[in-house]
């Protein structure tokens, strides 16, 4: 179960307006850890719609830290690999959110890149960086998988090859696909944590 399920509408509104995410006990320091409850957040997607993690209970959720200006993110988009992966697991009931913690990014920016890169899922605006910091996201991409009970079961890199070369994708082990397959099969995740690679998240501070 996700913590703090009883976020009030007013609190959620404040969260959106201020860009400040709500976490367990209201603590904004990094709390994300494998095996523990995922820090809650409420962020706007590119259309302005509020997305609350607390409302996703019972779903497997993937969080993907995203910055279209990062060559490591581009690596997974230029050939359509990230979209294919997300689409494949969306068909299996997985919710997949991209999160853009880049400073000064707007919903309009996220709308534009979603159109340009054929991204049909929600890109959440975390330009304040509060949610990124809560999850300790250091790089783009950083991947987090949350199980149906709201606990983090994977945190780290998308795959095993730390490069910006798209040609490396085919020969890499995709940690996210592997972990999702295990989660959906009701098995424990065998690789729970890896070191993420990529550009530093361009936080506001």
């Amino acid at each position, binding site marked *: 179960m996700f913590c703090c399920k009883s976020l009030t509408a007013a609190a959620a509104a404040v969260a959106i307006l201020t860009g400040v995410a709500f976490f367990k006990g209201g603590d904004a320091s990094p709390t994300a850890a494998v095996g523990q409850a995922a820090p809650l957040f409420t962020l706007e997607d590119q259309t302005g719609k509020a997305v609350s993690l607390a409302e996703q209970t019972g779903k497997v959720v993937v969080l993907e830290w995203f910055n279209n200006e990062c060559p490591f993110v581009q690596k997974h988009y230029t050939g359509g690999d990230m979209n294919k992966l997300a689409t494949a697991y969306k068909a299996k009931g997985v919710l997949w959110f991209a999160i853009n913690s880049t400073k000064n990014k707007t919903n309009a920016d996220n709308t534009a890149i979603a159109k340009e890169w054929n991204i049909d899922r929600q890109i959440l605006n975390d330009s304040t960086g509060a949610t990124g910091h809560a999850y300790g996201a250091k790089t783009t991409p950083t991947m987090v998988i949350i199980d149906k009970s709201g606990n983090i079961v994977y945190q780290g890199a998308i795959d095993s090859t730390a490069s910006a070369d798209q040609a490396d994708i085919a020969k890499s082990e995709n940690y996210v696909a592997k972990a999702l397959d295990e989660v959906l099969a009701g098995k424990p995740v065998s690789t729970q*944590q890896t070191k993420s690679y990529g550009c*530093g998240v*361009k936080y506001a501070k």
Partner: protein
Amino acid sequence: MSARPSILASLFALIAAFAVAAEPTTSPAADMPSQALRASDVSSVSFRLAKRQREGSSLTRPHPEAQLLWLLADFKMAAGWHIYWLNPGDSGIPTNLKLDLPAGVSISPGIQFPIPKKFPQPGGFIGYGYEEKVTVAVPLEITRGAKGIVDVSAIWLVCKDVCLSGHASAKIDLGGSVGPVLSAADLSLPRIANGEMHLPFEGATPSLKAVDPKTASVTLALEVPSETTVTDVFPLPAEDTELTINSIANPHAGKALIDLTSTSYAAPGVQTQPSQVLVVTHGPQGRQAAWVSFPSCLPTPTTQPSSTIPQTPDVGR
């Protein structure tokens, strides 16, 4: 960003001694015109050969009849931009050289990186790398008068407000122009490739204490000359391991203590490789550095600490 990419491109084209071809990225940068900024606009690399001073410890001593050369990769970055060390820190990727060598030519003892700088990154994170310029040195050992062409390629990430992926390659004729003799010290390389390994400290005794099954608190006790202090430490964790430097202390003359935390991401039962730190000292002989290796996780009977390692890690690791 104040620099105009066209001006920078011209500048770096003039600087590069060999043909380089940085690959463009496919996406616009934050505050530049769409698709205007390329790695080659803000960084470059050129390659050259130089004679290499015959030096080495019993662990790295070259073959007495071998010809020794440096293949040097000179990276230059525009103001405010940086590239990364062997361990990039919290983000980025290591600068990488890949070489295809003719028969009779080998790399020994390993690709050498100068002491890096530590720079803050957004979000309170730390990066390790180089600003302005750096020369990465490849020590070549040539036996039996081998000749031929070395194919070298460089891959790097150059970052400021955005990151750009760079790539360059060149063919170096071993029978071509060779610069004057350079020692490892001339190239500001850590002592692993330098002289007879007169290390600034006599030993590194690691003490590991388990915090939990995946985390160990590590203390490295170094014996250093009385007027020498440890001023900095750069971590190079083994694969699936994260190292955090907690503190560096010089409690009294001749003693230094490095406290760090080692966290393993390896699956249960998988033995992690040793980690290393590059220890930087300051003393009568100036600023020096040497590698120290230690177990990444809890010590086992087969994993013994060593005060030095025979060669720097493979950059392509």
